Protein backbone atom coordinates (compact mmCIF):
# COMPACT_ATOMS: atom_id res chain seq x y z
CA UNK A 1 0.00 0.00 0.00
CA UNK A 2 2.59 2.54 1.04
CA UNK A 3 5.47 3.31 -1.28
CA UNK A 4 7.44 4.71 1.66
CA UNK A 5 9.15 2.97 4.50
CA UNK A 6 6.37 2.88 7.04
CA UNK A 7 8.27 0.87 9.63
CA UNK A 8 11.13 3.37 9.53
CA UNK A 9 8.71 6.27 10.06
CA UNK A 10 7.04 4.38 12.92
CA UNK A 11 10.44 3.87 14.56
CA UNK A 12 11.21 7.59 14.20
CA UNK A 13 7.82 8.55 15.61
CA UNK A 14 8.35 6.19 18.54
CA UNK A 15 11.69 7.86 19.20
CA UNK A 16 9.87 11.23 19.01
CA UNK A 17 12.23 12.44 16.36
CA UNK A 18 11.28 16.08 15.61
CA UNK A 19 10.99 15.67 11.82
CA UNK A 20 8.94 12.46 11.97
CA UNK A 21 5.64 14.15 12.76
CA UNK A 22 6.14 16.46 9.78
CA UNK A 23 6.75 13.47 7.54
CA UNK A 24 3.62 11.76 8.81
CA UNK A 25 1.70 14.95 8.05
CA UNK A 26 3.07 15.04 4.50
CA UNK A 27 2.06 11.38 3.99
CA UNK A 28 -1.29 11.30 5.77
CA UNK A 29 -2.27 14.93 6.37
CA UNK A 30 -4.59 15.03 3.38
CA UNK A 31 -6.38 11.78 4.38
CA UNK A 32 -6.68 13.07 7.96
CA UNK A 33 -8.11 16.40 6.83
CA UNK A 34 -10.41 14.77 4.26
CA UNK A 35 -11.84 12.43 6.89
CA UNK A 36 -12.32 15.22 9.45
CA UNK A 37 -13.84 17.63 6.90
CA UNK A 38 -16.18 14.96 5.54
CA UNK A 39 -17.36 14.09 9.04
CA UNK A 40 -17.59 17.53 10.63
CA UNK A 41 -18.58 19.48 7.48
CA UNK A 42 -16.57 22.43 8.74
CA UNK A 43 -13.01 23.12 7.66
CA UNK A 44 -11.94 25.07 10.77
CA UNK A 45 -13.17 22.35 13.10
CA UNK A 46 -11.54 19.74 10.88
CA UNK A 47 -8.20 21.56 11.17
CA UNK A 48 -8.57 21.68 14.96
CA UNK A 49 -9.20 17.93 15.02
CA UNK A 50 -6.16 17.23 12.84
CA UNK A 51 -4.04 19.42 15.15
CA UNK A 52 -5.29 17.51 18.22
CA UNK A 53 -4.68 14.23 16.40
CA UNK A 54 -1.04 15.19 15.70
CA UNK A 55 -0.56 15.93 19.38
CA UNK A 56 -2.04 12.59 20.38
CA UNK A 57 0.10 10.80 17.82
CA UNK A 58 3.20 12.48 19.24
CA UNK A 59 2.21 11.54 22.80
CA UNK A 60 1.10 7.97 22.05
CA UNK A 61 3.74 7.06 19.45
CA UNK A 62 6.21 5.46 21.91
CA UNK A 63 3.53 2.88 22.78
CA UNK A 64 2.50 2.23 19.15
CA UNK A 65 3.68 -1.17 17.98
CA UNK A 66 2.62 -0.76 14.36
CA UNK A 67 0.44 -3.88 14.22
CA UNK A 68 -2.48 -2.09 12.59
CA UNK A 69 -0.49 0.08 10.24
CA UNK A 70 0.24 3.76 10.59
CA UNK A 71 -2.58 4.93 8.32
CA UNK A 72 -5.22 2.89 10.12
CA UNK A 73 -3.96 3.99 13.54
CA UNK A 74 -3.80 7.66 12.51
CA UNK A 75 -7.27 7.65 10.98
CA UNK A 76 -8.62 5.84 14.03
CA UNK A 77 -7.41 8.75 16.20
CA UNK A 78 -8.98 11.29 13.80
CA UNK A 79 -12.28 9.33 13.68
CA UNK A 80 -12.45 9.16 17.49
CA UNK A 81 -11.82 12.90 17.81
CA UNK A 82 -14.50 13.64 15.18
CA UNK A 83 -17.00 11.43 17.02
CA UNK A 84 -16.23 13.25 20.30
CA UNK A 85 -16.83 16.62 18.62
CA UNK A 86 -20.07 15.50 17.01
CA UNK A 87 -21.30 14.13 20.36
CA UNK A 88 -20.53 17.45 22.09
CA UNK A 89 -22.39 19.53 19.51
CA UNK A 90 -25.54 20.75 21.22
CA UNK A 91 -27.16 22.41 18.27
CA UNK A 92 -26.60 21.67 14.64
CA UNK A 93 -28.09 24.01 12.08
CA UNK A 94 -29.74 22.00 9.31
CA UNK A 95 -27.72 22.06 6.12
CA UNK A 96 -29.36 23.84 3.27
CA UNK A 97 -29.47 22.09 -0.11
CA UNK A 98 -28.77 25.46 -1.73
CA UNK A 99 -25.33 25.67 -0.16
CA UNK A 100 -22.34 24.04 -1.78
CA UNK A 101 -21.55 21.05 0.46
CA UNK A 102 -17.93 20.92 -0.73
CA UNK A 103 -17.30 24.58 -0.01
CA UNK A 104 -18.87 24.30 3.44
CA UNK A 105 -16.69 21.33 4.34
CA UNK A 106 -13.56 22.74 2.72
CA UNK A 107 -13.34 19.91 0.20
CA UNK A 108 -12.06 20.27 -3.36
CA UNK A 109 -13.65 18.33 -6.22
CA UNK A 110 -11.26 16.88 -8.77
CA UNK A 111 -12.37 16.05 -12.32
CA UNK A 112 -13.48 12.42 -12.66
CA UNK A 113 -11.80 10.42 -15.39
CA UNK A 114 -14.00 8.98 -18.17
CA UNK A 115 -17.03 10.83 -16.90
CA UNK A 116 -20.15 10.69 -19.08
CA UNK A 117 -20.40 14.28 -20.29
CA UNK A 118 -24.16 14.00 -20.71
CA UNK A 119 -24.26 14.35 -16.92
CA UNK A 120 -22.94 17.36 -15.07
CA UNK A 121 -20.28 15.93 -12.77
CA UNK A 122 -20.61 18.81 -10.32
CA UNK A 123 -24.39 18.42 -10.03
CA UNK A 124 -24.17 14.67 -9.43
CA UNK A 125 -21.30 15.03 -6.95
CA UNK A 126 -23.11 17.76 -5.00
CA UNK A 127 -26.35 15.80 -4.86
CA UNK A 128 -24.44 12.76 -3.60
CA UNK A 129 -22.56 14.89 -1.06
CA UNK A 130 -25.85 16.25 0.30
CA UNK A 131 -27.06 12.65 0.63
CA UNK A 132 -23.86 11.68 2.48
CA UNK A 133 -24.28 14.68 4.81
CA UNK A 134 -27.76 13.47 5.71
CA UNK A 135 -26.50 10.02 6.81
CA UNK A 136 -26.21 9.20 10.53
CA UNK A 137 -22.65 9.58 11.88
CA UNK A 138 -21.83 5.85 12.00
CA UNK A 139 -22.94 5.33 8.39
CA UNK A 140 -21.27 8.50 7.10
CA UNK A 141 -18.04 7.36 8.73
CA UNK A 142 -17.94 4.03 6.87
CA UNK A 143 -19.00 5.60 3.55
CA UNK A 144 -16.22 8.22 3.75
CA UNK A 145 -13.62 5.64 4.76
CA UNK A 146 -14.65 3.13 2.12
CA UNK A 147 -15.44 5.25 -0.93
CA UNK A 148 -13.60 8.52 -0.33
CA UNK A 149 -10.44 7.21 1.29
CA UNK A 150 -10.51 3.80 -0.41
CA UNK A 151 -10.01 1.81 2.78
CA UNK A 152 -10.64 -1.94 2.86
CA UNK A 153 -13.26 -3.51 5.14
CA UNK A 154 -10.44 -4.78 7.38
CA UNK A 155 -8.86 -1.32 7.63
CA UNK A 156 -12.23 0.25 8.48
CA UNK A 157 -12.82 -2.49 11.05
CA UNK A 158 -9.48 -1.69 12.70
CA UNK A 159 -10.01 2.06 12.50
CA UNK A 160 -13.43 1.96 14.08
CA UNK A 161 -12.80 -0.94 16.45
CA UNK A 162 -15.96 -2.77 15.34
CA UNK A 163 -16.40 -6.27 13.82
CA UNK A 164 -16.26 -6.64 10.04
CA UNK A 165 -19.93 -7.67 9.99
CA UNK A 166 -20.86 -4.33 11.55
CA UNK A 167 -18.81 -2.47 8.94
CA UNK A 168 -20.59 -4.35 6.15
CA UNK A 169 -24.06 -3.87 7.58
CA UNK A 170 -23.46 -0.14 8.15
CA UNK A 171 -22.22 0.18 4.59
CA UNK A 172 -25.26 -1.71 3.24
CA UNK A 173 -27.65 0.54 5.17
CA UNK A 174 -25.77 3.64 4.07
CA UNK A 175 -25.82 2.65 0.40
CA UNK A 176 -29.55 1.88 0.64
CA UNK A 177 -30.16 5.33 2.15
CA UNK A 178 -28.07 7.00 -0.57
CA UNK A 179 -29.95 5.05 -3.23
CA UNK A 180 -33.25 6.15 -1.77
CA UNK A 181 -32.21 9.78 -1.70
CA UNK A 182 -30.58 9.80 -5.13
CA UNK A 183 -33.17 7.70 -6.93
CA UNK A 184 -30.81 5.36 -8.71
CA UNK A 185 -27.10 5.33 -8.08
CA UNK A 186 -26.30 5.03 -11.76
Amino acid at each position, binding site marked *: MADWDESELIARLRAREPQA*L*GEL*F*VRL*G*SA*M*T*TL*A*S*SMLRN*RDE*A*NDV*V*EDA*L*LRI*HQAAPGFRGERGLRTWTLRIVANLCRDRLRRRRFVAPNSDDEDP*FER*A*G*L*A*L*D*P*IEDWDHALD*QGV*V*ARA*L*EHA*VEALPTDQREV*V*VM*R*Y*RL*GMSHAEIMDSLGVPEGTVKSRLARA*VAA*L*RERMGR*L*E
Partner: protein
Amino acid sequence: MSEERGREEALLARVLGAARAEADPEVLARARARIAEVGEVPSPLRWLGTPAALATAITLFVVVAGLSLALTRNDTSSGRESTSLVSALIGDDGSYGLPSSSAARASDSVTLDSGEVAR
Protein backbone atom coordinates in the same frame (compact mmCIF):
# COMPACT_ATOMS: atom_id res chain seq x y z
CA MET B 1 -28.01 -8.06 -8.41
CA SER B 2 -24.34 -8.30 -7.39
CA GLU B 3 -23.36 -6.81 -10.76
CA GLU B 4 -25.61 -3.85 -10.05
CA ARG B 5 -24.14 -3.60 -6.57
CA GLY B 6 -20.66 -3.64 -8.06
CA ARG B 7 -21.59 -0.80 -10.45
CA GLU B 8 -23.02 1.19 -7.55
CA GLU B 9 -19.86 0.69 -5.53
CA ALA B 10 -17.68 1.73 -8.46
CA LEU B 11 -19.75 4.89 -9.01
CA LEU B 12 -19.65 5.81 -5.32
CA ALA B 13 -15.89 5.32 -5.25
CA ARG B 14 -15.42 7.47 -8.36
CA VAL B 15 -17.67 10.35 -7.30
CA LEU B 16 -16.93 10.39 -3.59
CA GLY B 17 -13.25 9.68 -4.18
CA ALA B 18 -12.99 12.79 -6.37
CA ALA B 19 -13.38 15.08 -3.35
CA ARG B 20 -10.56 15.64 -0.94
CA ALA B 21 -9.13 18.23 1.42
CA GLU B 22 -5.55 19.43 1.26
CA ALA B 23 -3.65 19.43 4.51
CA ASP B 24 -2.97 22.91 5.84
CA PRO B 25 0.71 23.38 6.86
CA GLU B 26 -0.45 25.86 9.53
CA VAL B 27 -2.02 22.93 11.37
CA LEU B 28 1.34 21.19 11.65
CA ALA B 29 2.97 24.44 12.80
CA ARG B 30 0.34 24.88 15.54
CA ALA B 31 0.70 21.26 16.66
CA ARG B 32 4.50 21.65 16.85
CA ALA B 33 4.13 24.83 18.89
CA ARG B 34 1.85 23.02 21.34
CA ILE B 35 4.30 20.12 21.59
CA ALA B 36 7.11 22.60 22.28
CA GLU B 37 4.97 24.27 24.99
CA VAL B 38 4.40 20.92 26.65
CA GLY B 39 8.14 20.28 26.47
CA GLU B 40 8.86 23.59 28.24
CA VAL B 41 6.73 22.74 31.26
CA PRO B 42 9.03 21.61 34.12
CA SER B 43 8.89 17.84 34.50
CA PRO B 44 7.35 17.86 38.03
CA LEU B 45 4.50 20.03 36.72
CA ARG B 46 4.13 17.80 33.65
CA TRP B 47 3.97 14.81 35.99
CA LEU B 48 0.97 16.44 37.73
CA GLY B 49 -1.01 16.05 34.55
CA THR B 50 -0.46 12.32 34.29
CA PRO B 51 -2.79 9.52 35.47
CA ALA B 52 -0.05 8.45 37.92
CA ALA B 53 -0.42 11.82 39.66
CA LEU B 54 -4.15 11.23 40.04
CA ALA B 55 -3.56 7.73 41.43
CA THR B 56 -0.98 9.06 43.88
CA ALA B 57 -3.34 11.84 45.00
CA ILE B 58 -6.14 9.32 45.63
CA THR B 59 -3.79 7.00 47.56
CA LEU B 60 -2.55 9.91 49.67
CA PHE B 61 -6.13 10.98 50.35
CA VAL B 62 -7.09 7.47 51.50
CA VAL B 63 -3.99 7.19 53.72
CA VAL B 64 -4.55 10.62 55.28
CA ALA B 65 -8.27 9.95 55.78
CA GLY B 66 -7.43 6.61 57.45
CA LEU B 67 -4.81 8.18 59.70
CA SER B 68 -7.10 10.99 60.78
CA LEU B 69 -9.88 8.52 61.53
CA ALA B 70 -7.50 6.42 63.61
CA LEU B 71 -6.23 9.52 65.46
CA THR B 72 -9.77 10.72 66.12
CA ARG B 73 -10.66 7.33 67.62
CA ASN B 74 -7.58 7.42 69.83
CA ASP B 75 -8.43 10.95 70.96
CA THR B 76 -11.95 9.88 71.86
CA SER B 77 -10.82 6.87 73.90
CA SER B 78 -8.08 8.83 75.74
CA GLY B 79 -10.70 11.50 76.39
CA ARG B 80 -12.85 8.92 78.11
CA GLU B 81 -9.90 7.75 80.20
CA SER B 82 -9.10 11.25 81.32
CA THR B 83 -12.74 11.85 82.14
CA SER B 84 -12.82 8.75 84.32
CA LEU B 85 -9.50 9.72 85.92
CA VAL B 86 -10.85 13.15 86.79
CA SER B 87 -14.05 11.55 87.98
CA ALA B 88 -12.02 9.21 90.16
CA LEU B 89 -10.06 12.16 91.54
CA ILE B 90 -12.97 14.45 92.22
CA GLY B 91 -15.57 11.78 92.81
CA ASP B 92 -18.28 10.77 90.42
CA ASP B 93 -20.83 12.89 92.21
CA GLY B 94 -18.70 16.02 92.02
CA SER B 95 -18.26 16.16 95.85
CA TYR B 96 -14.46 16.44 95.64
CA GLY B 97 -14.20 13.75 98.29
CA LEU B 98 -16.08 15.87 100.85
CA PRO B 99 -19.19 14.60 102.53
CA SER B 100 -22.22 15.80 100.71
CA SER B 101 -24.63 18.16 102.37
CA SER B 102 -27.47 15.63 101.96
CA ALA B 103 -25.35 13.03 103.76
CA ALA B 104 -24.66 15.55 106.51
CA ARG B 105 -28.35 16.35 106.70
CA ALA B 106 -29.15 12.64 106.84
CA SER B 107 -26.68 12.09 109.71
CA ASP B 108 -28.12 15.13 111.46
CA SER B 109 -31.63 13.84 111.17
CA VAL B 110 -30.61 10.42 112.49
CA THR B 111 -29.20 12.09 115.61
CA LEU B 112 -32.31 14.10 116.00
CA ASP B 113 -34.71 11.21 115.52
CA SER B 114 -32.98 8.77 117.78
CA GLY B 115 -32.16 11.33 120.38
CA GLU B 116 -28.76 9.78 120.67
CA VAL B 117 -25.40 11.13 119.85
CA ALA B 118 -24.12 9.17 116.88
CA ARG B 119 -20.53 9.15 117.97
